[in-house]
């Protein structure tokens, strides 16, 4: 191997010599032929899927309330009151008409990182949610859903799918965006395997599940 070769050339050349006899023309067909016999489509009823989603979240110490689309603002108001939350930052894409009156809102674009670290809570919607694993997936809004101690996410029931593969398929259109999969409040089990909630991320996760 020539000395003058860059690491890139060296590595690629070594890979190619380790893979002699591989026909690049067959790659796509070969990839498509990978057997994916695992569950992809939903198998449970919608009602069971939603119940499972809520149960999984409970197991992660998240708090779930169900509401209707007309009652979203009230549900949010109740949570904020219960938590005695004084300051809340709202994700850029979150529809203002869903917010209850009588609270002071800060908007994502109007806050700095330092602000976000002192604000008590954040609110956003999500792109998809997974019942099987109790996961919500958000696009962007990375800082505001991380720095405040409380995070409230509004999930519409149509967004909740049963399986991970269904969610990945639904997210395909955002594949190149920044996506965060959130399954409960931040946690660690690094000390004696005892699960502790809230290390660096939000310690409290509230989910408002909006029923049709």
């Amino acid at each position, binding site marked *: 191997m020539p000395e003058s070769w860059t690491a*890139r050339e060296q590595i690629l050349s070594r*890979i190619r010599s380790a893979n002699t006899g591989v026909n690049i023309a067959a790659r796509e067909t070969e990839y498509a032929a990978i057997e994916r016999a695992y569950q992809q489509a939903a198998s449970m009823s919608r009602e069971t899927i939603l119940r499972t989603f809520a149960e999984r979240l409970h197991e992660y110490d998240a708090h779930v309330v169900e509401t209707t689309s007309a009652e979203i603002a009230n549900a949010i108001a109740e949570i904020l009151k219960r938590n005695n939350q004084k300051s809340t930052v709202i994700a850029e894409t979150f529809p203002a008409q869903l917010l209850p009156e009588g609270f002071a809102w800060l908007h994502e674009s109007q806050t700095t990182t330092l602000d976000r670290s002192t604000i008590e809570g954040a609110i956003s919607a999500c792109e998809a949610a997974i019942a099987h694993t109790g996961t919500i997936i958000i696009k962007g809004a990375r800082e505001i859903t991380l720095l405040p101690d409380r995070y409230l996410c509004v999930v519409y029931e149509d967004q909740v799918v049963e399986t*991970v593969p269904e969610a990945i398929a639904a997210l395909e259109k955002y594949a190149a965006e*920044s996506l*965060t999969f959130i399954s409960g*409040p931040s*946690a660690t089990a690094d000390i004696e395997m*005892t699960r502790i909630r809230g*290390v660096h*991320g939000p310690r409290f996760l509230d989910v408002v599940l909006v029923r049709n």
Partner: protein
Amino acid sequence: MSIRVGEAAEAPSFQKAALPLLDNTQLRKNVRHATNVITNKRAIVVGEQHDWQQLRAAASSIKEHTLRYLDHYLLQFEEACTKAGGHVHWAADADEANRIIIDLVKQYGGSEVIKVKTMTSDEIGLNKAFEANGIHPHETDLADMIIQLGHDKPSHIVVPALHKNRQQVREIFMQAMGLSELGDKPEDLTNAARHYLREKFLKVKIGFSGANYLLADTGGVCVVESEGNGRMCLTLPEVLITVAGIEKVIPSFRDLEVFLQLLPRSATGERMNPYNSLWTGVHTGDGPQHFHIVLLDNGRTRLLNDPEARQTLHCIRCGACLNTCPVYRQTGGHAYGSIYAGPIGAILTPQLFDMQHSQSLPYASSLCGACYEVCPVKINIPEVLIHLRGRVVREQQSGANLEAVGMKAMAGIFASSRRFEAAQRLGRLGQWPFVSDGWVRHLPGMLGNWTSVRDLRPLPKQSFRNWWREREAAKTQKDKADA
């Protein structure tokens, strides 16, 4: 090419390193507790996943396929990531990777770096290289922080500080953080870490991470974590530098549907870990505005070149094989003399690094197969261990080696049933010096390792074949008499 792994180059053999660990009561209690908790949790969440075997099969196929076209997928990743505003660097070995990373930190004028847990940075000895260049790395994963502040070494690839209990962690934190008071509940300790690190997260301008998956089709990077320290490091700094082994690439975003199901259940026994972050190059107004990724070889292409062992590169670093391994459960990770411990370490370390002690690692297993059974990407670890044992034997052929002489003699004996019978006779006669009161209690040399804690029954007077021969002879005689 010089390859090295942290400070492991002069580590003692597994046998030697294991001895003091077996006597470390506290460590063994901590390791037993931790591995029991994780294996039990894992068994529950894997048990409920009815398509587990199908997921494993798919993951194994995806990895196999990716390795076959690794050059293509790396180039595809490079192109997509560059297009999305990222910078892709290639490093043939540890030194080159460290040089690239340190130059980048200097270029951005940093003297501190916040790090999210990465085995790969331990593999290349990055923290040492940082410090030699006046750059201070802050480990932010709770366990890594315990290791860093306690000047210790990781003993597990997922929970590196599992050998420490809460009292030990408390002492480390009090000393390193200058605290005069601190409780010893896990909550107290976690809280101390939260306060200690929050300030660093907000202040330090350069973040550093590893990667769980590189997505070839989008140029995206995925990091899987629990505490939120990862998200902090990946989101808040102005600059993000990531290092990833070349085997971390997977063909497509879609493939996450397989790995995101396998990894958390295998690693921590959770249905899903709290956070997965996925980003692609630079996202305007959201997260770091400068992103660099270093693709690392450091022995991986050499491994790729061995058809029987290349499956080692399927590894997704879940640690399930460590938790289930009856050997690891006795010794913990430090006996393996490498950041990669347990069964996967026993096959990865000897292949990635040239170390004397690593010749003992393929033998640090009873070949019980528990590792293969739990591996989410179906690495047949026992098979690779046996393959590597073959390599060790071939490399040791030169010197006069008692074991090799014995094995060759045995092979000669087994080549003929007459020789085998003669050896049986000889054994029955020759064993008497070692037999006392009807038992073998002391054997010489290596075999003494057996009799140190185990008795042995002497060879019985009659072998099976002699019994059979007598019986056949008696039968024939009887038949004759009857006739």
